[in-house]
């Protein structure tokens, strides 16, 4: 039976409720919300309330409504207050729309009154006597500092392995990336580090940057005025929901056509067809991993028909053959269009063969992208891409091949253009240089698996749910962490010195000391020896920018749980304890490197970091800019307003590669089949392609949603979409639990029938706490250590009949049908 809240009325926010600017801390789009808070014993009335409308009347469609998920009772300044977090009609990003993620922000807050999110960590925990025991910050940080200092002074900073988020929103943002960045890249020079979603410290989009084109170069308004939306490896209705609804849909209504490249038919394709008509939507359901061949054929067709923007190419792109040679840091040569074409030239027939789509459709795509209008005017096209190719086959060349198309048609830096990644989280990166990490960067998961490194600091990452080769990673990480736990247990009752000695001995014997900073006790946190509780956005002030570089301050409106702190202040505390411990050890010079963390608040961290590079930007000014904020880069401050930039590269000068000539480079994206080791063999040996997909209802690895009855009621187990004929062949029914196996490991989920699924393709939701898809993903990466999560093949068998919980859920089509 569907989950019922059994709520039939809610408190009304009074007219004098406090109002806070909120940018949704989940996806890249960053929808604007208003948070209202008011005392527990006060309320508004139907006619006199914070919304300024007559709530005694039924509100019309699109009207203001406080849904139960937008309400909670939380702590503010130590007092219980009502909280309402409601979509902001005046925010240009979402115009009052709320997504299934963001409109649950209030409900996903910790509340001892309503019982929500009681999984949140409240105090530091330390492994003592076989369990995690609460302790003080000073005690926890002392142990962290003592073990870390011992290990990096007896060995080197290379013994310290760090996993840390690099994103905005959630626990990221400019404050927290700066705090962690200053600790690990300024006070130390840690090079064995990785990012939350990939096993190295590297860009997800090296090639577009090397070509000079920063990956977030447009404004969302470009979708509204374009002729064609060219979407690759993305499912925006689910994953950038209000970008699709509030910007792409208006574009389609204004007459734009849409091309979607995705082996799977998605709700995005369905919705685009509903809005624009099937004749204006081209779904290229290519063979998995063949994107580059498609882009190259499109480019070839455009070049051969003379649909290139020759003025743009002459004025804004490199002209003289090869500019950057292929080498260990560059998986393809970069240079002029002519040079690139020698590698990229692909006939329609060749591409049709590789991609499994008709030549006519490839021609149609090329025409929709580049064939000039009848009056000879240039066709505008927005190109947008995400994980389908970022986590796909041959990341560098594939993204390069796509950017080639945009450059050849002059669709960058112009209204109705842009070639952009769509993004996952918001952005919020401000750190000292990471140049010491090197390129290619260390493959950190393999480093740990090889038994290297002695201390692992983890910041808001749960590799157990999200990394590749996860079966092996988990096995080894646990084994190494258990060595340290056993040593701590054996030294129980000892002094701090004795405990540290025991830990260091265990590390020297192959153990790993694990420090986990997170908001919940995560799966990887099961291996931790010290757990430090962090707060999230709105439990602290947090700045981030969205997918059109829109910078906002999302304001603190409530207390964090217990003694949890902002990550930047946790990093500062670690640095201060490192300084103290190193000084005690007699290492004054090293201790001095950990000075400069006397921050009282997250604003202090912001001023120490982001503001130093962007002196116009302060909290006060951002607060005044409200939910519409300012689009980065911020270039001035006039008449009380921060001045930003709507769209990058409007002058035709490209600088992301750092070249003085400011000319964009084309990528010699030669097709080479399966790039990552082991992929071709795995495909040959297994029956099913295991596509790795997202669903709008879950935010990332469900770290909060795993505690949401509404969400878990819908999908109690990770769904695995499958064609009904494949189901019949396997003898499985909807909701049955199935196991996916291959040489890398096994995982499991719940069968969900999808008639449009291709035979032999299944689509499993990523990052589930109840079944990690990463268990079956092989360790293959590209030359720059970008994982190919999307390409995994396995065999499938039935584990069990649907549980009563699974039997109760709907297995109907996700596609809208009027």
């Amino acid at each position, binding site marked *: 039976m569907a989950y019922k809240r059994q709520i039939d009325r809610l408190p009304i926010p009074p007219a004098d409720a406090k109002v806070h600017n909120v940018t949704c801390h989940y996806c890249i789009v960053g929808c604007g919300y208003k948070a209202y808070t008011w005392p527990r014993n006060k309320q508004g009335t139907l006619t006199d309330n914070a919304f300024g409308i007559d709530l005694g009347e039924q509100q019309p469609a699109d009207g203001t409504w406080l849904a139960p998920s937008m309400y909670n009772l939380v702590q503010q300044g130590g007092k219980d207050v009502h909280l309402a977090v409601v979509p902001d009609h005046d925010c240009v990003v979402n115009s009052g729309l*709320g997504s299934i993620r963001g409109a649950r922000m209030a409900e996903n807050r910790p509340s001892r009154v309503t019982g929500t999110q009681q999984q949140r960590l409240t105090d530091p925990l330390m492994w003592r006597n076989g369990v995690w025991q609460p302790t003080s910050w000073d005690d926890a940080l002392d142990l962290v500092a003592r073990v870390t200092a011992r290990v990096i002074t007896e060995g080197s900073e290379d013994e310290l392995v760090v996993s840390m988020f690099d994103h905005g929103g959630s626990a990221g943002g400019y404050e927290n990336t700066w705090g962690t960045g200053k600790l690990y890249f300024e006070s130390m020079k840690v090079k064995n580090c990785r990012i939350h979603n990939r096993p190295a410290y590297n860009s997800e989009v090296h090639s577009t940057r090397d070509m000079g084109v920063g990956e977030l170069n447009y404004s969302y308004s470009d979708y509204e005025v374009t002729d064609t939306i060219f979407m690759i490896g993305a499912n925006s209705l689910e994953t950038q929901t209000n970008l699709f609804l509030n910007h792409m849909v208006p574009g389609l209504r204004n007459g734009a056509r849409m091309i979607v490249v995705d082996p799977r038919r998605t*709700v995005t394709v369905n919705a685009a067809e509903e809005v624009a008509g099937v004749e204006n939507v081209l779904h290229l359901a290519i063979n998995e991993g063949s994107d580059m061949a498609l882009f190259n054929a499109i480019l070839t067709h455009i070049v051969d028909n003379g649909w290139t923007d020759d003025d743009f190419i002459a004025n804004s792109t490199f002209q003289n053959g090869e500019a950057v040679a292929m080498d260990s840091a560059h998986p393809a040569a970069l240079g002029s269009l002519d040079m690139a074409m020698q590698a990229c030239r692909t006939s329609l027939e060749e591409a049709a063969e590789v991609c499994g789509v008709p030549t006519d459709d490839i021609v149609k795509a090329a025409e929709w992208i580049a064939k000039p209008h009848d009056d000879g005017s240039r066709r505008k096209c927005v190109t947008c891409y995400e994980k389908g190719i970022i986590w796909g086959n041959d990341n560098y060349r594939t993204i390069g091949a796509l950017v080639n198309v945009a450059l050849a048609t002059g669709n960058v830096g112009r209204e109705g253009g842009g070639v952009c990644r769509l993004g996952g989280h918001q952005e919020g990166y401000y750190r000292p240089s990471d140049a010491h990490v090197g390129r290619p960067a260390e493959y950190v998961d393999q480093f740990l698996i090889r038994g290297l490194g002695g201390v692992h600091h983890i910041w808001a990452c749960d590799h157990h749910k999200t990394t590749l080769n996860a079966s092996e990673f988990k096995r080894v990480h646990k084994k190494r962490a258990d060595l340290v736990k056993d040593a701590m247990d054996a030294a129980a009752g000892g002094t701090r010195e004795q405990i540290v000695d025991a830990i260091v001995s265990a590390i020297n014997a192959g153990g790993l000391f694990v420090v986990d900073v997170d908001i919940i006790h995560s799966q990887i946190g099961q291996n931790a020896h010290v757990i430090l509780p962090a707060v999230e956005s709105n439990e602290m002030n947090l700045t981030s920018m969205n997918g059109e570089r829109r910078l906002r301050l999302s304001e603190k409106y409530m207390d964090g749980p217990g003694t949890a702190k902002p990550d930047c202040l946790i990093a500062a505390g670690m640095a201060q304890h490192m300084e103290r411990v190193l000084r005690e050890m007699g290492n004054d010079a090293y201790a001095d490197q950990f000075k400069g963390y006397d921050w009282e608040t997250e604003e202090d961290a912001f001023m120490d970091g982001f503001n130093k590079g962007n002196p116009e930007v302060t909290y006060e000014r951002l607060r005044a800019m409200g939910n519409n904020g300012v689009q980065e880069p911020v270039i001035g401050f006039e008449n009380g307003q921060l001045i930003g930039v709507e769209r990058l590269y409007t002058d035709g000068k490209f600088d992301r590669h750092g070249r003085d000539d400011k000319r964009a480079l084309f990528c010699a994206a030669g097709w080479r089949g399966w790039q990552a080791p082991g992929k071709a063999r795995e495909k040959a040996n297994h029956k099913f392609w295991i596509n790795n997909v997202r669903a709008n209802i879950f935010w990332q690895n469900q770290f909060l949603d795993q505690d949401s009855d509404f969400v878990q009621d819908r999908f109690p187990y990770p769904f695995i979409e499958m064609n009904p004929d494949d189901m019949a062949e396997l003898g499985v029914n909807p909701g049955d639990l199935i196991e996916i196996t291959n040489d890398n490991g096994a995982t499991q989920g719940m069968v969900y029938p999808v008639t449009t699924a291709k035979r032999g393709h299944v689509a499993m939701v990523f990052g589930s706490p109840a079944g990690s898809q990463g268990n079956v993903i092989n360790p293959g990466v590209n030359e720059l250590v970008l994982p190919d999560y999307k390409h995994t093949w396995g065999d499938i068998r039935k584990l069990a009949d649907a549980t009563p919980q699974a039997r*109760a859920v709907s297995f109907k089509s996700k596609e809208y049908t*009027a």
Partner: protein
Amino acid sequence: MSKKCNRLVDVGRRQFLRGSALAAAGAAASTVTSAPAQAAPANAQIDYPSGKLANIADLAVNAPMDIEYPDADSPGILIKLGEPVEGGVGPDGDIVAYSVLCPHKGWFMSYNSEDRTMNCPGHFSRFDVEAGGQQVWGHATQNLPQFTLRVDDAGDIYAEGCSDLIFGRPTNVLYGEE
């Protein structure tokens, strides 16, 4: 989509275009009674009106009937599914009723009789009327408000409660507490 629901959508559009609290003419409207005036102090729980929606004899399988509950501004459907479902009433345990305002942004939804779902033309959300109004896919942060039904000895079907907050109101019984 049934003819009835087309009409419902049209009724709804008129109603919302007018921005009026008054209902357009509807078959069930006259049968909905207002809750009695509240005595102070208020009860801890909302008192729902008991509204007669139809008689079992009026219902055919998979032919939804337009209803309005708890008041004329809250359109819904009453439907006999032909198969028993959880929460279903009547001798066959197969009669259910739901709000038809999408709990995402309040658009009027239409019924797809082929797969028995409510579909929102605004933003493509859909709900399974055979699974307690569970959102199959969409943006709403709750499942479809389901009306609590009672059938009397004469086969008259009454609505007497609701599982979730109805879109566009702070209280499900909007006019009963004034």
